[in-house]
Every structure is written in structure tokens, then in C-alpha cells.
């Protein structure tokens, strides 16, 4: 199967059938699937955003003075947009692939392997969208309470930004899903990649690297672009160049990651 066919599978009905399957399970288990995972960023927001705000002076964000809770609100949206699809494509996809043999069952039908991979990518991104919606709702409530100061209408854009970036994060995670020998080995992509990336991407604190190489790396980092695009919209009503940066960095990560994930998954699941 060519690279174009592997990438084109994103639009195929087969990928949407896999997405639908995961969505049905989610709806079936919504009580446990929605609230607890979405509470994590909310608790972070309460702990760091509200908790630290009293101890941190206002920050200057592109000429606008904002309190720390406002800064963290956008960061938590980026953190959720990264973490939800990344961990969904790591753990939940691994369970479906390895323990539940769900993929084996699906592959015994008309559905082809690239569509299974795309179904998982689309689903993980959609989950990110759901969780970002919950976080955005909480941020909106705190805005009404005067704790943060954001442009409320732009909160509606956050789930869609998260969905786009989530495609890249999920495809990247599926590379590890395809190669880790056991679920315990997920600690590597979680603690060595997931956590550092979610912390150093202008989520909880601003980083402005001076070295040109680091600057380029930052521009290529979709978590950073997501955080800055979200912050630009919520604080200024203008994402600046970060919207383009987000789309570019997403594509740069999504395309090779998906092709590699398809290849590695084929090797693992089909022995080919």
C-alpha cells in the first residue's frame, strides 16, 4: 500500500467505522469515560491557576497584563489537547490492540489496517475535543466569576484547535503503541516524552529560548503552537502566526508519524 493510500485512508468510510465503534463504547461508558479524565486539567487549573495566582504577579503577554490564572487557562487547554489524544492512543489503543484483540476482529472484515490506525487517530483527537470542551466550560465559568479574563466567544474555537493538533499527537503516540513490548513500557513515552513536552511548551510557564536551534524546535512543537494559538485567541482575540504554526507543525508531525505507525502496526499485528 502506497503512502498516499495510507494517508488517504483518513477519509475512507472504514476509518469512520472504527471511529464510530470507539465512540459508541465511549457513550456506553460515559459516566466513567467523561468525568474523571476531564477532571484532571480542571484540578490542575484549580491547584496551579487559582492556587498560584495569589503568589505570582501579573504577567506581560504581548503587551497585555494578565494574571497567572488567565495564562494557565490557555496552557491547560493545550495540555488537555495534547494529553488526551496522546494517552488515549497509547493506553486505550494498546488495550484494544493487544489485550482485547479488537483490531484483529476488525481486520477480519473489509476494514484495512490503515483505516484502523486512522480510526484510532480520529477517535483520540475527538476525545481531546470532548475534554477541551469541558475545560473550556470551566474556564468560562471562572471568567464569569472574575477569576480569569478571557474573550469568551473564542472559547468555542478551542475544541476545534485541539482536534487538529490532536491528530498529530495521536499519530505520534501510535508509533509507541506499535512497538512497546508490554504496557509497562508505556512509561517511556509517558514520562520521557509526554510529561516533559507538556510542561515546557508554554503551558504552565513561559519559555523563550535564546538559542536559534531551540527556537526552531519550539516552532516545530505543536504543543507550544497550540498553547500560544489558544492564548492569543483568549487574551488578544488574535492567534497571530501561531494558527499557521499550529497547522504546519501538526502536518509535519502527523504525516510521517501516521506512515510510520501504519508500517509498524502492520508488522506487529499482521506480522508483515
Amino acid at each position, binding site marked *: 500500500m502506497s503512502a498516499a493510500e495510507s494517508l488517504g485512508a483518513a477519509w475512507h468510510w472504514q476509518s469512520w467505522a472504527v471511529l464510530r465503534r470507539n465512540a459508541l463504547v465511549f457513550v456506553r461508558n460515559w459516566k466513567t469515560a467523561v468525568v474523571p479524565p476531564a477532571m484532571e486539567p480542571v484540578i490542575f487549573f484549580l491547584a496551579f491557576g487559582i492556587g498560584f495566582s495569589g503568589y505570582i504577579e501579573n504577567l506581560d503577554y504581548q503587551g497585555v497584563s494578565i494574571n497567572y490564572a488567565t495564562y494557565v487557562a490557555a496552557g491547560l487547554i493545550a495540555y488537555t489537547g495534547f494529553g488526551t489524544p496522546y494517552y488515549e492512543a497509547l493506553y486505550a489503543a494498546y488495550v484494544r490492540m493487544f489485550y482485547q484483540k479488537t483490531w484483529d*476482529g*476488525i*481486520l*477480519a*472484515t473489509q476494514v484495512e489496517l490503515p483505516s484502523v490506525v486512522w480510526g484510532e487517530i480520529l477517535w483520540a483527537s475527538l476525545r481531546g475535543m470532548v475534554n477541551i470542551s469541558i475545560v473550556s466550560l470551566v474556564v468560562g465559568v471562572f471568567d464569569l466569576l472574575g477569576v480569569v479574563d478571557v474573550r469568551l466567544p473564542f472559547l468555542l474555537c478551542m475544541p476545534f484547535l485541539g482536534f487538529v493538533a490532536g491528530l498529530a499527537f495521536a499519530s505520534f503516540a501510535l508509533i509507541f503503541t506499535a512497538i512497546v513490548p508490554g504496557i509497562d513500557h508505556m512509561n517511556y513515552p509517558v514520562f520521557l516524552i509526554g510529561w516533559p513536552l507538556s510542561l515546557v511548551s508554554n503551558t504552565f510557564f513561559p519559555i523563550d529560548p535564546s538559542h536559534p536551534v531551540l527556537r526552531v524546535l519550539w516552532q516545530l512543537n505543536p504543543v507550544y503552537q497550540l498553547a500560544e494559538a489558544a492564548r492569543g485567541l483568549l487574551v488578544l482575540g488574535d492567534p497571530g502566526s501561531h494558527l499557521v504554526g499550529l497547522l504546519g507543525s501538526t502536518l509535519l508531525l502527523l504525516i510521517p508519524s501516521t506512515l510510520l505507525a501504519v508500517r509498524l502496526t502492520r508488522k506487529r499485528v499482521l506480522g508483515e
Partner: protein
Amino acid sequence: MTSPILEAKGLTKRYGGRTVVDDLDLECYPGAVLGLLGPNGAGKTTTLRMLYGFVPPNAGSIRYAGRDFFEHRTETKRMIGVCTQDDSLDYDFTVSQNLFIYASYFRPRIEDPAARVAELLDRFALAPYADESPHVLSGGFVRRLLIARSIVHRPDVLFLDEPTTGLDPSARLDAWELIDAMRSDGLAIVLTTHYMDEAERLSDRLLVIHEGRDVAHGRPHEVIGDLLGDHVVVIPRDEPRRDRIDAWLRGRGAEHVASVLGEVRVPVSKDDLVALSAEFEGATWQVRPPNLDDLFIALSRQQGKQP
């Protein structure tokens, strides 16, 4: 004459430098069961995986109803039902939802899926468990659900990979009845099994694979006759002249001599049997027709002798 619904020619699969399936031809007809036999590692599962599109062959062609599988992959996959030996049920759904969700993986869509699911639940005696999780099902009923799921889209060809492995005798008989009924409905079935009685009873034709190659094919009794001869002499372990008889038969060129719990089983020709009776008058032995167990043991031992 009916055309084959499945026709494979020259199927070859190599992994690294090793040829796992070597220039294999097979055909399967509507309303017929093709039994695919061979010892472990013979290449049965790889053959199946090529036939239902899990792995591409290095050489050879596969046609379903005359259409090339690789040129019309999506359309021809619609004609295939696959029941793998592993339990790949979707435990996130109930029994009936398993059938519905599986139906959603096919295009063109299944007409009236609710009616089809109800029909299958009824036919496979799964209706009482329709709203239960598959976790509550016994091994036999899990297998029923796996088979029912694999035909939810009304395929023309069904692949059954060791469908009764792990089932108790009663559940095995039930599975046989279901397989026989599906054959009567006109479904072409490709079956792999380790149970020789199952292969003999269910298969209209057999294909015996050994080290990836076709070593015999045809009707079950023809296949056995071609490979083993007319009779099997069984010499009990307490026969005092057992070793001498064994040596005598080997001296006459008897192949596939097997020892099972001290009992010697030797496939022999009619002439050898007459000569044996004359040479060892008064010795105790039994004579029976050869069966697939003899063939399987013979092939396995032969394989064990290979480096």
C-alpha cells in the same frame, strides 16, 4: 460443472530466506468444505492469512468468483467471512451489539441488519444472551458467536481456523451441525483443524500441506489412500513378536511406522498384509482402515526428522 468461488494458484510466501508456503494451488466450491490439514508449522495459517488478505503472497494469484483479489480487494473482501482461532469478540458490547457492530464494517451495507441479527441469534441459539456481555458465554457459545459474527454480512466464502479447538465434545458436535448447515446453505467453507475426525466428517475435499507444499489433495479417503495405503496394522504392546514384526515390515519398505504408547501402527498394502499373515501366523494384531490420525502422525514424524 459449478465454478470455484475461490481459486488460488501458485501461492508462495517467504519470510526472510524461508519459504513457508510453496507454490500452492487450491479451489473451493459453493456448498462445499475444503479441509486444510497439516502438522504445526506446515503453513496452514499463513495460507489462510494470504487468502483473506492479512498478508500478501510473494507469488501467485487469488480469485474470488473469478475476480482478482488484489485488483478488486475491497469488493472481494465483502465476499469473505473470517473466523480466526483467537477470541476477538468485542467485549465492550453485548452479544447482539457484537453482531451489529461487525455488520457496520461492511459496504455495501447489510440490508435490514436488525432482521439479520435476529435471524443469527435465533439460528445460533444465542437469543437468550442477546443483551448479555459475551463474558457470560461458555466456550461453545463464544465460538457460536464468533461464527455467527463472521457470516453476518452473508459472505460467499467462510474461513474457519480451528473452529472447535478448546470445546468440549458436546459443543464440538454442535459446531459441526452449524458448519454442516452453513454448507447446506451454499456457503463455501475453508476449514483448518487438528481434529482428524472433524476433518474427515466435515470436509468434502482435503488439502494436506507439509512444509508449505501440497502433499495430497482430493476426497478424504482418496487422500489417505494415496499417502498411506489400504490398511493399517496395529500391533499391541504385549505382542511378544512385536519388534520382529516391526523390523520385518520395515524391511519390506513400510513407511510411516508409528509407535503410540508402545503400540505399533504400520500402514501396509494389501500384498504386505497377506505376506505378514503368512510369516507371523498366530501373532496378535488388528487391521483397520487408515485414518487422518495416521496421516497426521506420519507427517509430523517426517517433519521431525528434517533438520
